[in-house]
């Protein structure tokens, strides 16, 4: 359950958003839309616990149950996909991480390049790896900021597939038509 009351965020004198009320029940899907600079990214960072709200009340699930994908894929570029996922598997204390990592790399089409450095990847492949990292610890709450960024048609279809999984979703996107079917709640920034 993600719940917010009168949530506000400012950077100095600049108001990013104010008066945001949210109720995303377990298993719900919040679709966040709005133009560039309207506060979508900042809201997701606040909901991920990465930034503090300036005002309002916020109820978040435990940190380790959250998976967050920002504008960056949040992987080390000088490591390989296997090294990145092994590191995060250790940090998330996954018991049988080898099997899970292998399954995710296969699923997102990265198995054949698992020993190559991420810095040699296209932005789309990095985004796929970012999705693997986010799903690695099987989070119950997924916060995705523009997840379709840089993905080709095949990558976008792979991403479409994960939205049917029973989790709590908060997705900010400029392509709302792709997730309109799953959305149970909507928040539109002006």
């Amino acid at each position, binding site marked *: 359950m993600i719940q917010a009351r009168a949530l506000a965020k400012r950077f100095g004198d600049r108001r990013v958003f104010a008066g945001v009320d949210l109720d995303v029940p377990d298993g719900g899907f919040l679709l966040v839309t709005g133009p560039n600079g309207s506060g979508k990214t900042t809201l997701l960072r606040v909901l991920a616990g990465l930034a503090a709200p300036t005002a309002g009340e916020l109820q978040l699930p435990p940190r380790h149950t959250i998976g967050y994908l920002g504008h960056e894929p949040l992987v080390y570029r*000088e490591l390989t996909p296997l090294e990145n996922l092994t590191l995060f598997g250790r940090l998330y204390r996954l018991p049988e991480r080898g099997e899970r990592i292998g399954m995710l790399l296969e699923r997102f089409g990265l198995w054949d390049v698992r020993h190559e450095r991420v810095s040699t990847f296209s932005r789309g492949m990095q985004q796929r790896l970012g999705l693997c990292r986010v799903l690695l610890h099987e989070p119950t709450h997924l916060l995705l900021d523009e997840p379709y960024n840089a993905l080709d048609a095949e990558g976008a279809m792979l991403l479409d597939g994960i939205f049917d999984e029973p989790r709590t979703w908060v997705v900010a996107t400029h392509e709302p038509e792709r997730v309109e079917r799953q959305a149970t709640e909507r928040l539109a920034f002006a």
Partner: protein
Amino acid sequence: MTYASDVAALARKDLLLELRAKETLPSMLLFVVAALTIFHFALPNGTSDVAARGLLWAALIFTALLGLTRAFVAEREQSMFDALILTPVDRSAIWLGKALAVFAFLVAAEVVALPAFAAFFHGLNGRTVAAVALADVGICTVGTLFGAMAVAGRARELLLPLLFLPMAIPIVVGGVGGFLWFLVLYDAIFALLSWAAFEYVVSEV
């Protein structure tokens, strides 16, 4: 045990990143050897041991600063703090893993720097080597904390030296004077403070 394995995984990651990028350690080695060479030719013959030791400490502090400046490059450029903070790892483990990696780079630089100093100047005694080893602990613990603080700041290239160099003055005083007890005390106090403070440095929350 979990805390130790988290720290080990994070430190190993930094060593692997450096092994691949080969940016920090070669720069530190080149800098410290160049600095000692310049000091060798700049100092007149018959210079006292204390003056030479002072220059060794100046070279080591600036070499460490070079390493600390590079310590959080991946976290800054690839926003990796976000990913690390969301894991269930104790945030101080992130600091300790990074401090251990910086310590390894500094020791590797000193393995070359100390024999170079001994060759250029008046040899090297055990007390100086012990002081350097103790100083490394203080440099890495305090420097890593300030390195993380500088990542969040806008003028980060200026912020780290401004924060770190004043805090390095006691290390130089203890090192040049050979006051090992003072360095032990410095290490204990500032390692504890840095360990406790890191939590508040890496997140707004």
